């Protein structure tokens, strides 16, 4: 995916941006490491194999257990130690311990009982087994992909019927039509749920609930399709909102390939408490890193509200920050699907040149990352013919600039979540252009003092300036000033605030020593 630089970018400026982004992140890391969240605790239990609902209810067992510990006032010590202690004491499986805890058949052990070597050993063994499960799922994905590699850019489409069974039908049609990645869009507002629903679901709005069972159903269907088509089809979902780490665990277990996962999206777009998101994203990414799951960051969303010409540098600055947070969580660049988008107003003269410039810039600044390129959405029109051509220009830009993950735009973007043939039409066009323009990028160069190169340099410079400002005031202040997506998030408040807590001294972190900054 590495291309020789065509924009004559100043490598020192790029280096300074990285340094600044690291400074932004470094300042926050102590605060992040000092904390855990409800979802992190639940993720630990899930990682250890706890699953399913409380008997006779819809409530996930992990929620009931963590809530119970909170009621005890002992959440600061974390859930790992007491559960491990009970397991050691009873010889029961983690799930069984949790079930009994919730049923009241077991009581939380005394604090002292939680800091023994036995407990530590038990926790270590559980964590090891968790990693084993994840690695096994990752290995079997790799096996399936072997000899079935999809061409670049990967064509990525969404399914969003709200019903997992309809989603499967649509996914199979898409895979046959040439889709390389299938993303099951989540129901509106799932990101605000402080739990992961259970079971196969058929009742979402504008998307289908992310549940372990839905993951399993879709992955099984795509495994069959991959085999049948001789082309590995990736499965994508969202580790975003209030349950980032839990969804990462479920995804890792069920062999998902990619997750939408951003260090700031929840804060900016879902008004989620800042520390909640920062702590959650860290664990979720550590899990993705060990499962080889590619994350997709959400900078593209900035341009659905901010102007793509004015705000292009905010996308780039944010990508550096996302990159730095991801490195911190142990993620290699090869797993960072940094997001950007094709959202310049087509009424602007030379809009395509603006798009090519930022697409090429992103490609060159992050040469080792599987860049995710999002199609136009805000300037789509109900005129499906017009919208389809806008997507064609996007498709061309993507191929021309060597993007990696190519989200296919839908002609009906301004109308409805995709019908089965909308997706087909979109894939058909993307394939057509991928074939027709295959070598175009390699064949052309941009005038050193021309529009494209000049625009790219300009955006890079502005991003450096912005990162410098952010490093100056700190990320949290910058967010409350509304630097991204024209959205201001005040220092306090936001959803899920009551789910963040400081770790006590006795907090047992089962992942301690298992994550290290990737360098």
């Amino acid at each position, binding site marked *: 995916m590495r291309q020789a630089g065509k924009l004559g970018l100043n490598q020192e400026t790029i280096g300074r941006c990285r340094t600044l982004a690291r400074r932004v992140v470094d300042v926050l890391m102590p605060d992040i490491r000092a904390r855990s969240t409800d979802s992190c605790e639940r993720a630990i239990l899930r990682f250890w194999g706890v699953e399913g609902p409380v008997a006779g209810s819809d409530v996930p067992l992990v929620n009931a257990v963590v809530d119970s510990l909170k009621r005890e006032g002992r959440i600061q010590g974390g859930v790992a130690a007491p559960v491990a202690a009970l397991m050691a004491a009873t010889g029961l499986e983690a799930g069984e311990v949790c079930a009994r805890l919730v049923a009241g058949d077991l009581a939380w052990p005394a604090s002292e009982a939680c800091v023994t070597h036995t407990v530590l050993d038990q926790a270590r063994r559980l964590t090891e087994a968790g990693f084993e499960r994840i690695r096994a799922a990752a290995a079997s994905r790799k096996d399936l992909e072997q000899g079935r590699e999809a061409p670049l850019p990967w064509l990525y489409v969404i399914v*969003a019927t*709200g019903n997992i069974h309809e989603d499967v*039908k*649509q996914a*199979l*049609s*898409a*895979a*046959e*039509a040439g889709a390389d990645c299938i993303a099951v869009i989540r*129901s*509106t*507002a799932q990101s*605000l749920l402080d739990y992961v629903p259970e079971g196969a679901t058929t*009742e*979402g*709005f*504008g998307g289908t609930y992310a549940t372990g069972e839905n993951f399993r159903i879709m992955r099984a269907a795509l495994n069959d399709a991959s085999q049948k088509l001789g082309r590995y089809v990736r499965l994508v979902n969202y580790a975003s909102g209030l349950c980032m780490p839990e969804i990462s665990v479920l995804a890792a277990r069920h062999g998902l390939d990619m997750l939408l996962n951003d260090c700031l999206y929840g804060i900016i*777009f*879902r*008004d989620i408490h800042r520390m909640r998101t920062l702590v959650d994203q860290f664990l979720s990414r550590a899990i993705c890193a060990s499962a080889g799951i590619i994350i997709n960051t959400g900078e593209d969303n900035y341009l*659905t*509200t901010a102007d793509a010409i004015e705000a292009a540098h905010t996308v780039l600055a944010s990508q550096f920050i996302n990159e730095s947070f991801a490195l911190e969580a142990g993620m290699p660049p090869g797993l960072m699907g940094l997001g950007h988008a094709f959202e310049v107003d087509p009424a602007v003269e030379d809009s395509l040149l603006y798009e090519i410039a930022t697409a090429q810039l992103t490609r060159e600044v992050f040469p080792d990352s599987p860049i995710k390129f999002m199609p136009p959405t805000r300037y789509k029109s*109900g005129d499906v013919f017009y919208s389809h051509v806008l997507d064609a220009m996007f498709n061309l830009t993507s191929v021309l600039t060597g993007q990696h993950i190519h989200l296919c735009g839908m002609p009906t973007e*301004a109308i*409805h*979540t995709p*019908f*089965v*043939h909308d997706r*087909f*039409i979109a894939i058909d066009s993307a394939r057509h252009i991928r074939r027709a323009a295959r070598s175009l990028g390699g064949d052309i160069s941009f005038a050193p003092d021309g529009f494209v190169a000049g625009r790219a340099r300009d955006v890079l410079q502005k991003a450096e300036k912005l990162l410098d400002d952010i490093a100056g005031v700190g990320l949290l202040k910058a967010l409350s000033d509304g630097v991204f997506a024209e959205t201001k998030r005040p220092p306090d408040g936001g959803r899920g605030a009551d789910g963040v807590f400081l770790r006590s001294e006795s907090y047992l972190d089962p992942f301690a020593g298992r994550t290290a900054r990737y360098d």
Partner: protein
Amino acid sequence: MTNSSIIGPYGDTLGDGQVQLSFTLPAPHGPKAEEAAKQLLARMGFKDVRVAVSRDIGGGFTFFVAYGRTSQTVNLDEVTVDPVLELEALGMHEVDDLLAGEFERPIVVVGACIGSDAHTVGIDAILNMKGFAGDYGLERYHMFDAHNLGAQVEPEELIRRAVELDASAILVSQVVTQKDAHIHQLARLVELLEAEGLRDRFLLIAGGPYISNALAKELGYDAGFGRGAKPSHVATWIARRMIEEERTAD
């Protein structure tokens, strides 16, 4: 067609009734699916049906692009346009003057995207200073005191704030329509207001790309604004309605 106000679709000759269609059938690609598509088009009432293409879109589905002639027509003279759409929008200053002539204090309006909907751009376009397509939002009017609560606000919360602020009008935005999400959420707000006996206290306005005045009224709202609505249009409607109510109240 004898009367030129009686119109139907036009391809390249007046009265030809030409319509383009596309759709998918859950049937494997082949002559049988194509024949089924033709019969279906005939049943929909189309004449001279031409299936321009049938494509295998995978998963056992076949996609069709087709053309046919309809003999349906409408008489333009008999088509009546929704009164909200016909209302002529005043300029910002005119609205302010109109309201200032009648009221002492600015009209308080509260807006939000309710329920699971997080698409704030539409309500922002109506309420925020900046407005939409060069038309300023209600915040900029002297005679409006606009409060925009943003995304994913629960109906209960919206009602609480409206009461607290002693608002005259509640504006809600609904953009997601899949599986009739907008209908469910809009209906729920009305139910809650009615349950609390507060329905008559507010002008209740809905908006969104697939909201029409007719739909909004059906759901118990006072008005609905759709695709491309402008702040000045909404402002004019509220002003006229407030003044009317004020006068009948007198």
